[in-house]
């Protein structure tokens, strides 16, 4: 059973206008701090209520800065909610920022192990998967060179191959469908389709309405941190397209 339930969920970021706070600044200007480096509140998500469960394929659409990626990170447990609750049941695999977080001095092969452990694998379960990753990323001898020397494309291949090797119950995707060269992209798409089919629950953020339509049965339209509409994918996308069209046309 996999489920995600958000109730009355708010997320507020508090930022400083000028820069990050230093201890010197804090101690010296303590009294005047708020005037010189005022706090800014940014409400990233407001009053979200959502319930998705087994079998749901949810597409999240909306303009840039609408809070789509933040919502996904909230579901992954990276951001704690400021108010309300976020309950997630099931093993999560998150595909965002996948190219971040390589250990540059370690070889590709070692990085496969680190990432796998990060996703909760153990040396035993890793054994069977490592061959799969090595074969899928097609990096061959480069797997024994430090990741420091990889090109951007090679790093993305490796990251994608590692991230998609586990069999998650909940799959969270943020625009990762365009990876690598043509040949690899086709492979990647096939694997994504397979992954989406086997995951019990999927939430994807995409600007590609076509792929949302094709892959999702539900959709959420977000703007300024709020859910504008949610429901069957076809209806929500149609409404979004109507609203997004330039008025002059």
């Amino acid at each position: 059973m996999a489920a995600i339930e958000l109730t009355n969920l708010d997320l507020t970021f508090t930022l400083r206008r000028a820069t990050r706070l230093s201890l010197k600044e804090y101690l010296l200007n303590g009294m005047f701090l708020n005037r010189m480096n005022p706090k800014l509140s940014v409400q990233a998500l407001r009053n979200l209520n959502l319930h998705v469960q087994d079998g749901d394929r949810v597409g999240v659409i909306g303009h840039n800065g609408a809070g789509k990626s933040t919502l996904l990170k909230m579901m992954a447990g990276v951001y704690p909610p400021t108010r309300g609750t976020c309950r997630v049941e099931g093993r999560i695999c998150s595909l965002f920022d996948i190219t971040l977080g390589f250990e540059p001095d370690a070889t590709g092969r070692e990085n496969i192990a680190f990432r796998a452990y990060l996703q909760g694998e153990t040396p035993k379960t890793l054994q069977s998967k490592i061959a799969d990753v090595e074969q899928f990323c097609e990096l061959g001898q480069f797997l024994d060179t430090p990741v420091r020397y990889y090109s951007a494309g090679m790093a993305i291949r490796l990251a994608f191959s590692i991230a998609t090797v586990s069999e998650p119950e909940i799959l969270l995707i943020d625009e990762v469908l365009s990876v690598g060269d043509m040949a690899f992209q086709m492979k990647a798409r096939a694997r994504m389709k397979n992954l989406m089919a086997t995951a019990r629950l999927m939430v994807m953020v995409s600007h590609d309405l076509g792929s949302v339509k094709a892959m999702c049965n539900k959709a959420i339209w977000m703007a300024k941190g709020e859910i504008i509409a949610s429901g069957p994918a076809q209806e929500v996308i149609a409404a979004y397209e109507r609203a997004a069209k330039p008025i002059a046309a």
Partner: protein
Amino acid sequence: MIQHLTSIWRFRHFWLSLVRLDLRNRYRRSVLGIGWSLLNPLAMTAVWCVAFGQILGQGDWRSLAPILLAGMAVWSFLSASILQGCDSFIRSEAYIRQCPLPFAIYPLRTSLGLFIHFAIALGAVVLAIVLLQNKLSALTVLPMLIPAILMMMVFGWCLATLASFANVFFHDTKHLAEVLTQLMFFLTPVMYTRDMLDKQDLGWIADINPAAYFIDLFRVSLLGGEGPNMERYLQCGGITLVAFALACGTMAWLQKRVIFHL
């Protein structure tokens, strides 16, 4: 807290492999390997022995060298725990932004690497005592120090945890810590002994300094030859407990806010 600790254990493969990587990178970069990392305390001891033994005409270098080495082994572990601890969250930012792992893993990675380094340095101290002073008692005392060594590990982990939180919220913490540890190096009985302070009626400087207790515990136990001083042992245990409580409290208080300050 129990939950936090069990989930640290659940991800042990992750941080253990990162510690292995750190150690390998540290020791691989030179032909000398482990010897390279001991170069700093050894060179420092040599200079100090020459300076005090020859120039000031004080003491025999054979008795002085192990005292200095022991002091430096403990001191460099504790100060490095703070200094490198500052970077623990910053350098793991990518992991923190992707996966909600227990935060204590990151300072643990830092302090465990330093701890292994400390163990090697401690080995060098024992070797120095046996070779220079022909005191085999240092070897027999060693098993009695195992709890103390583990206590050091926990203490270093707590220091690194506190430092890493401080550095996330105030990003100049590391800079200040560098200045302060430099200062503390001279105010702590690292390159001299505690009784030198006592003679000047300055014992209180060591009394208020947690690092001095640990240095004294290791120094007296290894060099004194009659085993650890129980009172010192308990004091160090108390310090570790307080640090642990502080680290746990800070963790509970601030862990949900770290992500917003990275």
